[in-house]
C-alpha cells in the first residue's frame, strides 16, 4: 500500500516536471496560428517560420559557434590540466584542483557578475571573446572531472611500456593515453557544448550588445509575446541538448566495447 502511494506520487512529480516540455514539443507541430490548444492539425509551419527568422537563425549560429569553440577550448585545457594534475607531482595539486572545480560550486550569477566587474576594472569591454572565456571557465570543471576520473584509471605502466618501446612522450600521448581516454574526452566535450548551448545566466551578463544566443533570443522573444515559434525553437533546443549527449553516450559505449578497456 505504502509503495503504491510512493509510486503514484513519483509519477505525478515527474509528470509535473516533464508534461510542460512535452506540451511545448507537441505544440511546435501545431498548425494553429496561436501557440496553444486546441491543435488544429500537424504541420512544420513553425519550424519554417523559424528558418526564415533572421534573428533566430543568427542566434542559432552564434550559439553553435560559441558551443563548439567552448567545447574545443575547454576539452583541450581540461585534458592538459588533468594530465598535469594526475601524472605530475606538482606542488599544491589539491588546491589547484579545488580552484579549477570551484566554478561549479559558485552560483552562476555571482561568477557572472564577478567576471564582468573584474573586466570592467581592467578596462576591457564586453566582447565575443569575453563571452567565450566565461563559457570556458564555466564548462572546464565538468571536462576536468570526467577526464581526470578516466585518467586515474589508465595505468601508468601502459605509458611506460610505450615509452620503453621507443615512442616519445608526445607520441605516447597520442597513440596510447588519448585513445584510452577518448570516451571521457568525448563526454567532456559534449558536456561543454550542451552547457554552453543552453546557458543563459552567464550569457546575459557577458554577451556584447547585439549578440544573441538561442536562450537569450528566446528570452527576449518571450518579453514581447508567446509566439508559437518559441515552441519550435524549444523543440530544436531539446533535440540538441538531450539528443546529442544520448548519441554521444551510445557512440562512447560502442567505442568502449571495441577497445575493450
Amino acid at each position: 500500500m505504502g509503495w503504491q502511494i510512493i509510486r503514484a506520487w513519483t509519477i505525478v512529480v515527474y509528470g509535473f516536471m516533464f508534461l510542460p516540455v512535452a506540451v511545448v514539443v507537441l505544440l511546435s507541430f501545431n498548425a494553429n496560428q496561436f501557440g496553444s490548444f486546441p491543435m488544429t492539425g500537424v504541420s512544420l509551419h513553425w519550424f519554417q517560420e523559424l528558418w526564415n527568422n533572421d534573428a533566430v537563425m543568427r542566434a542559432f549560429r552564434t550559439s553553435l559557434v560559441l558551443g563548439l569553440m567552448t567545447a574545443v577550448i575547454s576539452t583541450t585545457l581540461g585534458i592538459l590540466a588533468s594530465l598535469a594534475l594526475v601524472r605530475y607531482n606538482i606542488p599544491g595539486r589539491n588546491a589547484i584542483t579545488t580552484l579549477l572545480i570551484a566554478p561549479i560550486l559558485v552560483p552562476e550569477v555571482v561568477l557572472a557578475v564577478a567576471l564582468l566587474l573584474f573586466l570592467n576594472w581592467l578596462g576591457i569591454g564586453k566582447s565575443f571573446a569575453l563571452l567565450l572565456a566565461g563559457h570556458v571557465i564555466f564548462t572546464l570543471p565538468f571536462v576536468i572531472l570526467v577526464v581526470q576520473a578516466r585518467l586515474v584509471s589508465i595505468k601508468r605502466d601502459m605509458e611506460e611500456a610505450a615509452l620503453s618501446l621507443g615512442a616519445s612522450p608526445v607520441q605516447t600521448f597520442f597513440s596510447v593515453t588519448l585513445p584510452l581516454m577518448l570516451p571521457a574526452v568525448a563526454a567532456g566535450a559534449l558536456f561543454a557544448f550542451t552547457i554552453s548551448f543552453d546557458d543563459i545566466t552567464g550569457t546575459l551578463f557577458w554577451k556584447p550588445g547585439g549578440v544573441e544566443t538561442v536562450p537569450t533570443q528566446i528570452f527576449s522573444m518571450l518579453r514581447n509575446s508567446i509566439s508559437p515559434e518559441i515552441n519550435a525553437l524549444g523543440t530544436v533546443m531539446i533535440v540538441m541538448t538531450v539528443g546529442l549527449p544520448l548519441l554521444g553516450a551510445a557512440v562512447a559505449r560502442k567505442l568502449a566495447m571495441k577497445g575493450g578497456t
Partner: protein
Amino acid sequence: MSAVTLKNIVKRFGTFTAVHRTTLEIPEGAFVTLLGPSGCGKTTNLRMIAGLLDPTEGEILIGGKRVNDVPIHKRNLGLVFQNYALFPHKTVAENVAFGLKYRNVTKSEIAAKVRDALDLVQLPHVGDRYPKELSGGQQQRIALARAIVIEPDVLLLDEPLSALDANLREDMRVELKRIQERIGVTTVFVTHDQSEALALSDLIVVMSEGRVEQVGKPEEVYNTPASEFVANFLGASNISEGRCIEHGATIVVEDAVFGRVTVPAAKAPNLTGTGKAKLVVRAEKLLLSKAPAPAGVISVPATVETVDYQGQAVRYFVRAGEVQLQAINMIDDHPFAAGEAVHLHLRPQDCAALPG
C-alpha cells in the same frame, strides 16, 4: 664488457634512501636476477636502468655509454611489467608491432618480425585478437614478444610471473628461460621469489633494505650465503651463535648443538679469524635418522616436535637440548612422528660460517 653498469648509484626519495651506494656489473648476455623482499630497492634499480627514475647520485652505463641523460624512449630497452601493460585498444599484432613503428622498419618487415615474435612465444594465431580475449599467461607472452621484437640491448622484467597462478608460473618460468637462451639478450629480472631466481639466473643479486647483500651464481648464494639475511631469505637455515676456534689450514667453528665443526674454507669466505662466528646449517642438510651416523658425520640426539607434511618432503621442527632446529627431508617410507627420538646427522662440509 658489461651490458649494464651501475656505478655508485644512490637513490633518495625525499629523506628516504631507497638505494644505498650500489655498484653492479651486469655481464653481456647474462640472466641477472635482483632478488629481495618488497621495499629492498630492486624495482628502484630496475626503473633507474630503464630510465623511469633518475638516480640521485652515480652513473648508469648501458653498453659502456653513460645513459643518465638519455630518456627512456631512446635507450632501446625491452620492458615487461607484472600486469602485462598491453594496450587494450590495439590488437595483439598491433601491440607487438608498436615498437617497430618508431624504428626504420618497412611494413613487410614489421609483419615478418611480428610473426616471428609470436612464433617464438608459441602464440602464432592470436594476432587479430584483442588482449582482453587472452588469458593472463597468454597476455604475458605477448608482452614479452612486444619487448623482444625490437631487439633490445637489455630486457628488463619487473616481476613478470607474479600475477600468474602457481602452475602457469612454473610453465612460464621454463618458457622464459628457453626464450632468453634462444635470443641471448642480456636480461635483468626482478623478483621476490627465490625459486624463480634460483631456477632462471646466471647471476643472483640479493638485496635488502637498499643494499646489495650478495652477488653470485645460484649455487653460490644458496650454498655459501654471505650474510644471515641471505641465509634466511634463500631457503630455510638454522643459524646459531658460536665461536671460531681455529682459522688456519682448517676452519673450526664450535657451537652449542653440533660441537666442533670443521667448515670448508670456501664456505666461510667472510670469516677473517678466530672469535665470534655463526654456524649456518641448511634445513635440507640436517637429516633425521634412527641409524647411527657413518664415519665423518656429526650426530646429535634430538626429539621431533612438529611435523609439517608436504607430500614429497616433510619439514620437521626438532629439539636438540635447548635449541629448536628446522629440518627438511625427503620422505623415505613414512615420516617420523611428533615425539619420536631421533639422531640428527650433519656432514661438516655442508655447513657454512659467517662472521659473528
